[in-house]
């Protein structure tokens, strides 16, 4: 096996919570990402799923160096991003790019499409002025936009088209790794399908590696080779996408799969629904032992005491004490 393109070792991202404005004091720490180890192979699409507040976006932002990690290593092509100076980091940036959730917020409303897509090219000295126009046109064609719209502003486009612009901008520097944070959750169903097809096509054509962050397990399964499931800042299960989806090991993954409503009335009527109890606990004081034990249908007393270790199976692994 070749070395992974991205190797995350024991990554932790903490946020301090303070109270008061003038004489603010620390009242706690949120461990948004708590000891995550994750390897991403070259050319794969890794789906990162979990519910809101589980730390998936923070993990993605930490890899992008948009969030300062408290501990751990982020090895991108064997270089620890956390150890780099900002100048060194900038020379590496073209190789990993991000697509954000909300295409209304991620594009500057006062910049034309051309300016938005050409900005990274200019910053990194990729193309001269004359060359840039061709380059931007080609990128727009790749994402399914007509190059004649180059001089338009973001507000003249629909949500799906804006997401295409954001994708073109991320592709401009020919990155090796793309992190897409909920790229379709702000879009309507029919538009969502267009963007998902576009992303999967691009990954194949350019041999891209992608981390796809989403709360929607159905979307993630559709695109990914592997799926990692996060709960309260930790990865609780990871493995081959179909295995994780069709035979989940961890009780949380099982609940997550069971909770998805499928557009198939017969299937919906036939299967047993087992909604989870309660809500995700506050990440400010996570439960002891296994973070899932207060909501887990099969938890025993030992689950509150012992932090579970990885249980390995042929195509996936999970952190649960109750797996035989």
């Amino acid at each position, binding site marked *: 096996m070749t070395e992974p393109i991205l190797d995350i070792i024991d990554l932790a991202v903490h946020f301090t919570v303070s109270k008061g404005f003038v004489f603010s004091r620390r009242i706690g720490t949120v461990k948004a990402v708590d000891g995550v180890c994750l390897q991403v192979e070259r050319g794969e699409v890794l789906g990162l799923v979990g*519910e*809101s507040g589980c730390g998936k976006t923070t993990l993605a932002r930490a890899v992008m160096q948009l969030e300062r990690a408290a501990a751990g290593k982020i090895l991108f092509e064997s270089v620890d991003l956390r150890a780099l100076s900002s100048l060194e980091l900038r020379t590496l940036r073209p190789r990993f790019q991000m697509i954000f959730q909300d295409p209304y917020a991620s594009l500057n409303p006062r910049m034309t499409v051309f300016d938005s897509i050409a900005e990274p090219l200019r910053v990194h000295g990729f193309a001269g002025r004359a060359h840039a126009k061709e380059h931007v046109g080609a990128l727009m064609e790749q994402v399914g936009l007509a190059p004649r719209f180059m001089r338009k502003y973001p507000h003249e486009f*629909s949500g*799906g088209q804006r997401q295409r612009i954001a994708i073109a901008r991320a592709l401009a520097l020919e990155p090796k790794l793309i992190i897409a944070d909920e790229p379709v959750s702000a879009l*309507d*169903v*029919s538009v*969502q*399908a*267009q963007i*998902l*097809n576009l992303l*999967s*096509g691009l990954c194949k054509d350019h041999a891209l590696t992608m981390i796809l962050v989403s*709360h*929607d*397990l*159905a*979307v993630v*399964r*559709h695109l990914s080779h592997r799926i990692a499931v996060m709960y309260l800042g930790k990865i609780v299960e990871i493995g081959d*996408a*179909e295995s994780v*989806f069709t035979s989940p090991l961890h009780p949380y993954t099982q*609940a*997550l799969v*069971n*909770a*998805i*409503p*499928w*557009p*198939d*009335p*017969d*299937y*919906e009527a036939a299967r047993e*629904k087992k*909604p*989870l109890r309660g*809500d*995700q606990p506050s990440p400010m004081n996570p439960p002891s032992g296994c973070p899932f034990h207060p909501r887990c249908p099969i938890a025993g007393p030992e689950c509150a005491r012992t932090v579970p270790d990885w249980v390995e199976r042929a195509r996936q692994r999970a952190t649960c004490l109750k797996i035989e």
Partner: protein
Amino acid sequence: MSLLEVKDLKTYFHTRHGVVRAVEGISFDVNSGETVGIVGESGSGKSVAACSLLGLIPSPPGRIESGRALFGDRDLLHSTERELRAIRGKRISMIFQDPMTALNPYMTVGKQVTEPLIAHEPCSRADARAKAGEALVSVGIQDAALRLNDYPHQFSGGMRQRVMIAMAMITGPELLIADEPTTALDVTVQAQILELMKEMQTRLQMAMILITHNLGVIARTCDRVLVMYAGRILESAPLRMLFRETKHPYTQALMASMPSVHAKGGTLYTIPGMPPDPSSEIAGCPFAPRCAHAVERCRHGTIALQEVSPDHSTACIRVQAGEL
């Protein structure tokens, strides 16, 4: 006997930029005890239709241009504000998408849950409070008696939606209108809330109109489904029939564009083009410009919803003519 009979409802918004035809002549019935799902993408007019029934359309700019909505012996669309007030929150309740904006942040939950009781029934505060406690218990909120004194921000998203449900159910309404009740929630919480709503419905023998863009939620909860597009109903059928013998090309396209439960597909089906601009009048079928089966006839006149097999109606002239 149907509980609610809507005939030819038209709601327009008269804006500075022209007339927006949000709901363009829809007719449907709701029988006692049944769940009718209204599914459609954003801008299809599903929420406006529901709000029109309860007189919740801001006027100006909104205006109900025509139609009747018979609820018992009363026409909701031609009732005075006073008459409507006697029905809203008593015989018909509504749940909204975002429980944070639907609840008043300055009022305790107890006060808000008792409000409909005090407004509609001769009921002392102490009685109302006791009933509110029971209502919170019935929607699965622990320590209900204590939590009556809490404010909405002290509840999680799922809990707030439970509070909304308790508030909507406390008067024992005959009809509940739920507008995207789970869209803002995580999947595991969504599963809990959908279960809860079904349970409450059986207990109170109540009819429900469930508005959603998610065909999975429809499949999980509804008895009958209306598919809306550009302010019109394009297809209406009992749940299983809609999924098994989908008639209208739009419904077919919508279903094909969702990731399937059974297999991890390659490319998703995408609907070309975009929904029509609601501020221009549409001749013929609103879906014709995006439809793979459209012929010249589809672009003229008005196309009415017609029964094509028992209990199954569609607004596609080619299906009506037996061509598709």
